[in-house]
């Protein structure tokens, strides 16, 4: 007989450790522990058996992996934290003694990131550890960019030092510069929250959200210390990512930053990029490393091949600009379309930039941004899609191609104000007056030979990779709906861009119509109908009670007590048994009638059946049959499987219902004829 094993020495009891235990083991304070967890990417786990992991304690706690904490024990940052803690102790001791000089001397060694925006330690090794390859870092860039772009737009406060904000802004602008140079921005979307951007760098899709340029509302329940910890890490991460990206396209990092032009709100224009002597470095053949969303290996191989092809032309190119001719010379650049082999399969995400090169979309145009348009996102997105010359009103800041609205080079002007009707005479006058003297036009006046569009035109063109018709986006026009380019189209889900007729179920419109027909009736006669019905049912009850009082009472109580357990499923049979019989009898009657008619020699008049009603009843019958079939099958499933099945049915039904609601709404809108044109 083996030795009796002691409880709590192996398995879950040993693998998990509570937060309090972890903090005690590491001998640091809770805020320091939090920082470490954030930087090292350590997160709590849900043990499979909580009771075992908690060693039978019942209070709710968070659990960490013991191995994770063990790994934290060797962290060099831990030593820094301890040093800082010791230093703080020394300072407070010196202050307590009244030794101000000593305290000041010590204070110089202390790290005060809230004042200086700098810490005594660096997080380089943590980043290297968390992201062993560059692609890993790119994959995790979503949250990093969203956070830094938010902080770049925050006002400085006690908890958010101005230096931190400035650094965030600089890093973000540097990253945008890379996207412009490498033309890796793919999609963008104007949402109510802010502007979403999606870039593809080395095959990784990076999606981030930039808030609109407003003062952000800061609520009291936001702890900026936690956010600050994240920002500290993300700043370091983005710094190194930027370095790598810049060197990969042959640029010097950090780019030269012109403080004075930045003070004049030049934004992107405050940086001047310069080529390094080495040139763009060779891209390592990247592979999508392990991730939980592992796609089909075949498809992966295809995409890999494809991406390596795409990367090839970048190698010889010295400047980030790729000439159109060069691009055309490459016949291998054509991308195969992935068509679903069988109908009904999901539509695959197509490799996106096959049709047009994103660097050429706006390359031949000169844009002018009106005073009321958001300059920053427009400048970024236009430049990222090849536009070289963007002018804007002088109020929008430095760095424009031109501040002169009348510059003859301008081909497109982006306007976001309601049109003002101007008399022709006045216009004439103003033209004669202003053309030579002022750079600004009178409000509402237009320069001929120029396309005026609303900002959405830029976004829709970018997302569809083609220039949209500008007349849909003319100033003051009702804009076509702005659709998210990130939604993957799934069979059976509502797609607002497809015509309604393609998506409807059979007979859906008929049903909807009849529902609509029914609805007013219900609402009108609701009360009138309901009351007599109620009375009638009461009468029936009373008579039944009179017949057998005792019996019904017992039954009722029994039924009530058992109702929760009463099997819900099997009842369906008998219900529609009646109906079936009804149908059988009705068909029999019909036959009888026919026979009689034949005997008597009278032509039987065809009973005119409303096709709508027929369709409806047929659909109903079919649905009922299917339902019954499912219920019968469900009876034979195990309890666990049945639960899963019910859940799936529920969620599917919910999705279908949502889609149907949307379809109904659209049908109504289309019928009323108020719909905007869909581009």
């Amino acid at each position, binding site marked *: 007989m083996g030795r009796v094993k002691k409880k709590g020495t192996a398995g879950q009891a040993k693998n998990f450790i509570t937060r309090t235990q972890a903090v005690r083991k590491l001998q640091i304070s809770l805020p320091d522990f939090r920082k470490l967890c954030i930087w090292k990417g350590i997160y*709590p*786990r*849900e043990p499979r058996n909580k009771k075992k992991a908690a060693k039978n304690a019942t209070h709710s706690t968070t659990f960490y992996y013991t191995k994770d904490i063990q790994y934290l024990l060797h962290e060099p940052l831990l030593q820094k934290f301890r040093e800082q803690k010791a230093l703080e102790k020394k300072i407070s001791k010196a202050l307590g003694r009244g030794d101000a000089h000593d305290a000041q001397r010590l204070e110089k060694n202390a790290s005060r990131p809230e004042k200086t925006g700098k810490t005594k330690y660096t997080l380089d090794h943590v980043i290297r550890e968390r992201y062993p390859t560059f692609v890993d870092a790119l994959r995790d860039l979503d949250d990093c960019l969203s956070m830094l772009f938010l902080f770049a737009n925050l006002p400085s406060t006690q908890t958010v030092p101005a230096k931190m904000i400035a650094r965030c802004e600089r890093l973000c602008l540097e990253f945008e510069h890379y996207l412009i140079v490498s033309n890796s921005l793919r999609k963008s979307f104007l949402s109510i929250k802010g502007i979403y951007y999606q870039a593809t760098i080395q095959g990784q899709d990076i999606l981030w959200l930039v808030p609109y340029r407003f003062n952000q509302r800061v609520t009291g329940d936001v702890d900026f210390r936690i956010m600050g910890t994240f920002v500290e890490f993300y700043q370091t991460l983005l710094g190194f990512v930027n370095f*790598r990206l810049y060197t990969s396209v042959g640029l010097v990092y950090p780019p030269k930053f012109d403080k004075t032009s930045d003070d004049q709100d030049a934004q992107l224009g405050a940086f001047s990029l310069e080529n390094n002597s080495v040139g763009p470095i060779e891209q390592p053949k990247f592979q999508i490393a392990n991730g939980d969303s592992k796609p089909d290996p075949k498809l992966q191989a295809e995409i890999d091949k494809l991406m390596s092809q795409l990367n090839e032309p970048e190698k010889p190119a010295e400047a980030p600009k790729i000439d159109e001719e060069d691009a055309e010379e490459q016949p291998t650049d054509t991308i195969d379309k992935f068509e679903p082999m069988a109908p009904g399969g999901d539509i695959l995400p197509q490799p996106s930039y096959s049709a047009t090169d994103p660097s050429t979309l706006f390359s031949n145009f000169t844009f002018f941004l009106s005073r009321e348009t958001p300059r920053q996102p427009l400048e970024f997105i236009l430049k990222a899609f090849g536009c070289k010359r963007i002018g804007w009103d002088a109020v929008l800041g430095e760095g424009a191609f031109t501040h002169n609205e009348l510059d003859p080079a301008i081909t497109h002007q982006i306007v976001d104000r309601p049109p003002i009707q101007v008399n022709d005479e006045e216009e004439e006058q103003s033209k004669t007056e202003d053309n030579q003297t002022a750079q600004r036009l009178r409000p509402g006046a237009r320069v001929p030979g120029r396309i005026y569009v609303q900002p959405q035109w830029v976004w829709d063109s970018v997302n569809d990779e083609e220039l949209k018709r500008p007349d849909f986006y003319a100033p003051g026009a009702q804009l076509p*709906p702005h659709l998210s380019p990130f939604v993957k189209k799934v069979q059976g889900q509502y797609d607002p861009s497809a015509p309604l007729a393609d998506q409807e179920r059979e007979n859906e419109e008929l049903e909807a119509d009849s529902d609509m027909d029914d609805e007013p009736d219900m609402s009108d006669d609701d009360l009138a109908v309901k009351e007599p019905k109620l009375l009638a049912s009461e009468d029936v009850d009373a008579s039944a009670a009179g017949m057998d009082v005792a019996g019904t009472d*017992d039954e009722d109580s029994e039924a009530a007590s058992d109702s929760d357990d009463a099997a819900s499923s099997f009842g369906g049979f008998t219900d529609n048994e009646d109906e079936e019989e009804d149908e059988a009898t009705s068909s029999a009657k019909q036959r009888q009638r026919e026979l009689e008619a034949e005997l008597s020699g009278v032509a039987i008049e065809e009973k005119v059946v409303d096709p709508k009603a027929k369709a409806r009843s047929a659909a109903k019958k079919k649905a009922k049959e299917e339902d019954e079939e499912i219920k019968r099958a469900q009876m034979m499933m195990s309890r666990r499987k049945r639960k899963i099945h019910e859940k799936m049915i529920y969620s599917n039904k919910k999705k279908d219902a949502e889609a149907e609601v949307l379809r109904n709404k659209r049908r109504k809108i289309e019928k009323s004829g108020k719909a905007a044109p869909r581009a």
Partner: protein
Amino acid sequence: MAFGTESRKRKAITRDVPETSDVESDAEFGDGILEGILSQSEDDSADDSVEDESDEEGDDEDDLEALDSDEIPSEDEADGVVEKRGSLQEDDHKPNYTVTTDANGGERYVYDEINPVYDSDDSDAAAATNTIGNIPLTFYDSYPHIGYDINGKKIMRPAKGEALDALLDSIEVPKGWTGLTDPATGKPLNLSQEELEILRRIQTNEMPEEGYDPYPATVEYFTGIEEKMPLSSAPEPKRRFLPSKHEAKRVMKIVRAIREGRILPYRPPEEREQEEDEDVHYDLWQDEQPRADHVMNIPAPKMAPPGYDMSYNPPPEYLPTKAEKQAWDSTDPEEREKEYLPTGFDALRKVPAYDTFIKERFERSLDLYLAPRVRKNRLNIDPASLLPKLPRPEELKPFPTVCSILFRGHEGRIRSAAIDPSGLWLATGGDDGTVRLWDTSNGRQIWSVKIGDEEAVNVVRWRPGRDAVILSAAAGEDIFLITPPVVDPETETASVALLDTGFGYATNATPALTAHGQRKEPVAKWTRPGSRLQDEGVLIRITVRTTVKVISWHRRGDFFSTVSPTAQKSAVAIHTLSKHLTQIPFRRLPGIAQTVQFHPSRPLFFVATQRTIRSYDLQKQELVKIIQPGARWISSFDIHPGGDNLIVGSYDRRLLWHDLDLSTRPYKTMRFHSKAIRAVKYHKGGFPLFADASDDGSLQIFHGKVVSDMMENATIVPVKVLKGHKVKSALGVMDIDWHPREPWCLSAGADGTGRLWM
């Protein structure tokens, strides 16, 4: 002592004190300096507590200091002073001495006896302390006095002065006037210049006393005082005069280190900070090596990309209707399905800031480091693929679907029903105590007999086998064996003969003796039921001790077993028809016996108690198996004609299928009834059917196919629910039976009808 009055008197003077004092002092200083001063000082000692002449006192003090520096006045002078004082104070007091002649004839002053009252000479004690305590003086507003002194005497209110005085007061404010009233004395509180100065100093955090040095230079104890003589006479050591070699060595060490650059000279910290201000960037992924993620590592899920409804200008169908908007507004922010409400703007310039942007980002960061991550497999499959493939009921025909024959006639419930082995007749027994025979082809009643006088017929069962037609029925404690007079005479005589053969055995058998030598009461008595019943065809009555609820025949027809659940020991009895013998196989049963069955092919005997079913080998006389269906209260069970499967019905609404080879636990549990299951039955004639009857008035027909292959499980498919019986006093269908050859099912209902379903 009349201090109060005195002070009052003085009070009257106070207003012109400064002048008077000045005048006085001036006058005094003119001739005899000392007198005025001393007299004043004495006055002071008396008036110390009054403190209204502090200013004057200050002056006096100065004078006193001046006096101190001079010589102390001699005694005779003092005498003179006293004398003069006496004369001076004549107006105030009578002289407290009398002048007499002494023995020498000289003048002798005889002083009055001093009345040593308390604090008569205590200058420290407050003179007129008001003893009313810490209460407002306004309480005494309506009295002439303002309190009591230490002796309990009233302290009279000081005169307020006349209107003219008041006017004068208002015009010229006396020196040190504060406008306050001393609560202790009720007099106006005046502060001297000195006191005001002290107050100012306290207010400005200075020392109250001018010129006070809180930190005087210490006078060292030893070195402060230069000693005339040395403490030690030892000569100074040499080392005091020679430079230390050791120190020189250490200095040289440092010098060398500095020269060699091992010790860097001190650099001001400002430079260092500037240096650090720049970010150091380098290619962190110079030699990147892909590393497989740890198995347990779960990367944080990415934020969901925005959908159509998040657009600033969404398609109009995504905009919420008024009702939806209201619903969204009224729900708690934490319960909302989406954290935002789709909103449409017709121009980009109209889009406002998203007010929970920071909060959302904050929550995301909280999720990143606080939320436990669990990998969840989302089943993205068609739910239909989960459903087991069941054959359609149409393919499993035949099975009973409709009620074709109704058997009416019983008054009260029908408790039991059985179809005879030939399938021609149906026997029922009910609450009215009758056993009736029906024709199964048309539902007509052929024959009936009343066997229970008061008791209901609990159970009727046919003896298996075609050679004789014997019906067994139980009413109360009696079991009747009946040959119904409906069969052809040959079979009838065979049946009668079969029943009668046992009589010989019964008479021959010698009753067993108990331990006391008495005749043991036989467990059952086999008798003739009486001529009336005998004429009807009821041939044998077996009387047992308690009510019989269940009869179960052995397949050969020689044995049958009965169950009387209420009996303690003799709950299960096995009767031998050929010997008219009754045996009690179990002396004790673990629980109340519910029902029994003989195995259809092997010598096994199954006994169901409330929770378990036990199977016994009759030959070896041992327990073979305990089957645990897991039901709370078994109502009935039936054995598949193949012998390896079992169905159990229970009062807790469960129908359980047991595979006897597989396990003692049920292979399949089905719970489709809303009320208790009363009876379960397999079809014994070759159709793979079984049925159960429930108190909810319905029967359920199942297709249950058992394959001979051991590896394959039985297929069980529910095919039909038969409803028709009415529920009466919470009872629905009491019993069911299958037709021996056809897929017809027979049910006995509590509503007094039997139904044949085909």
